[in-house]
């Protein structure tokens, strides 16, 4: 069963999250290396699991909350790995791995629906729509974690309390540039995701836009991130203000992703996606 693969991957994520926390405290390089490779193998297994499920249900596996959370977790790890290649910042894993593992646990606690995807769900547009949005969300998650790191480190320096994690956290400039990078990479992905979704809606539902709650809230989230990028690029915001706004944007994103999909109905909600009522 492919769920065995998922479970092994889940355990690898948990182990790696634990390892990364040990690394945060002990600062031993070999602990980092073990945690990193554990996370990487967990990620590869998770990738295999997603591919197998894609084949099993004949479409991108996001139609129930469990699948969506698992894909979200996968995106966070992917975003982390990409940024790790770019920045090589070891301590980032101590935040990203537990965060990803957290979503994996919730995902595993819920039941999977293996019902095959409806005809309308077998489209390349859907794969593009889901893929770009989720990778964008993964990057925004890193942006969120980086913002928390920034606020902590800034607090230590401003208040002249150089204990705690001051030595373990990177410099303010480094954290800020991770936040900037993840933001300017995530935003175009979110944009492409929304455009492709709307094109896909035109194909299947005959309209680009139908005031579905998820559409509306996604657009609000998009506007918030657009405002943040504008402030950063045009006004020159950085550091603390940008970090606080990043956290606000991410809260909005989680709201759109979970609350709207679960309780506000519409064709995007997990209920209707599962029953294929929407199409």
């Amino acid at each position, binding site marked *: 069963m492919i769920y065995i693969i998922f479970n092994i991957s889940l355990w690898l994520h948990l182990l790696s999250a634990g390892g990364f926390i040990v690394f945060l405290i002990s600062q031993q390089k070999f602990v980092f290396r073990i945690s990193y490779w554990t996370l990487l193998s967990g990620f590869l297994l998770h990738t295999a699991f997603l591919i197998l499920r894609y084949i099993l249900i004949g479409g991108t596996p996001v139609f129930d909350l469990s699948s969506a959370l698992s894909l979200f977790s996968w995106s966070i790890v992917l975003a982390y790995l990409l940024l790790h290649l770019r920045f090589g910042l070891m301590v980032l894993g101590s935040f990203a791995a537990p965060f990803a593992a957290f979503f994996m646990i919730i995902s595993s606690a819920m039941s999977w629906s293996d019902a095959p995807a409806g005809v309308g769900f077998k489209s390349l547009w859907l794969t593009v729509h889901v893929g770009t949005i989720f990778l964008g969300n993964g990057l925004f998650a890193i942006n969120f974690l980086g913002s928390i790191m920034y606020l902590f480190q800034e607090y230590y320096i401003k208040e002249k309390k150089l204990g705690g994690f001051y030595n373990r956290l990177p*410099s303010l*400039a480094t954290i800020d540039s991770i936040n900037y990078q993840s933001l300017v990479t995530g935003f175009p992905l979110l944009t492409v995701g929304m455009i492709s979704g709307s094109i896909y809606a035109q194909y299947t539902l005959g309209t680009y836009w139908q005031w579905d709650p998820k559409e509306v809230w996604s657009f609000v989230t998009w506007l918030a991130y657009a405002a943040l990028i504008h402030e950063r690029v045009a006004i020159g915001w950085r550091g603390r203000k940008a970090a606080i706004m990043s956290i606000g944007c991410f809260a909005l994103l989680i709201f759109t992703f979970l609350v709207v999909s679960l309780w506000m109905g519409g064709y995007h909600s997990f209920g209707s996606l599962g029953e294929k009522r929407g199409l």
Partner: protein
Amino acid sequence: MSRIINLGMNHETAPVSLRECLASDPSNSGKALDAMKEVSSIKECIFISTCNRVEAFAVADDPRYSAVAILKIMCELGGRSNEELSSSIYSNEDGDAIRHLFRVASSLDSMMVGEPQILGQVKQAYALAVEKKTSGVILNRLMHRAFRVAKRVRTETGVSESAVSVSYAAVELARKIFHVLEGKKVLLIGAGEMAELAARHLSTHGISEIIVANRTLSRAMHLAEVFGGRAVSFNEIETSLVEADIVVASTGSPEPIITYETVKGCLRKRRSRPLFFIDIAVPRDVDPRINKLQNVYVYDIDDLKGVVEHNITQRKQESIKAERIVQEEVEKFQKWLETLSVVPTIVDLRKKAEAILEHEFKKSSGALASMSDSQREAMFVMARSICDKLINDPVVFLKRTISRSSSTGYLDLTRKLFKLDGDEDDLH
């Protein structure tokens, strides 16, 4: 059997006047080595002399006699009487001497625990001993071990991790804000000694430009020239604030030079680039309220001293870990030292031969299976006598060296030739 002895004085046992009488002349170390070489009971020796300590380590047959001889040499070199020196001098033997050397090399015995210079000074002293051919089998290994202990202490503990001087603390803070100092601009306000010191420190970390502002422009121009920067007048501080990343203020002004309003006014033009004020003036030059502004950080001299104190307490905690490493290594070294006598070496040699014999027999057991028991027995006896014959001459030779003073060299060579210490990693 030879013993390791140590005689020395450091910043705790001897006043500076006494230390400097030995350390002031750099050629003293060489002279001390030459003199120690003349003492018949001393086989190997090394002499370490820095501004904070004078230490002699020796491998000697008669520790009492040798210690007295070394003390005499120190007195002669320093031009002090025996009574003056002996009250300030400590002496250690064997395990204690080894531990003392390891602690010195890894900077645990330093005035400022964790300071990095001492290891270099010990290495220099060792290089001199090698040059003068006063180090031998035991000291060579002891010194290499000491370097290894120092490395372990540095990498496995936080003893030398954080800054313990005000200027270092400032540079480290700047790094936590800007990540790298390359390409950053520094504005010096005030061109006194403190400013110069700070500028020197910062410029070794690759800052791109130094701007000097001083009330008397000529002094500013002089300092700017030294660091290849440029001088500005006091009125231009406000415009210079827009380009600077780090500001070091050290004027004697009774009122703050940098006001809250000035900094607030230039933030927009700076497009929120971080700005770090290092205020080492007393009374302060930078209004402390400036620290409340976004992306602006102000550290005054007390804050920096606070950082330093915090770091020192942390180092002390880390040194407990370091002492454990030292203890481990002392025990390892003593174990090795014990093997460096004739009987254990012969035992190890025999054991090695026996192990090879058994291993080879086991390997060929398939091929020997067709033989009768008596044939196999004969085969085994023959192999054993080959082994015995082969090691017989070395064993006889080693037994004869027991009485000779050069025995450690032969023992060491034997252990290396036959690889009796297993895979010894790291030396040489």
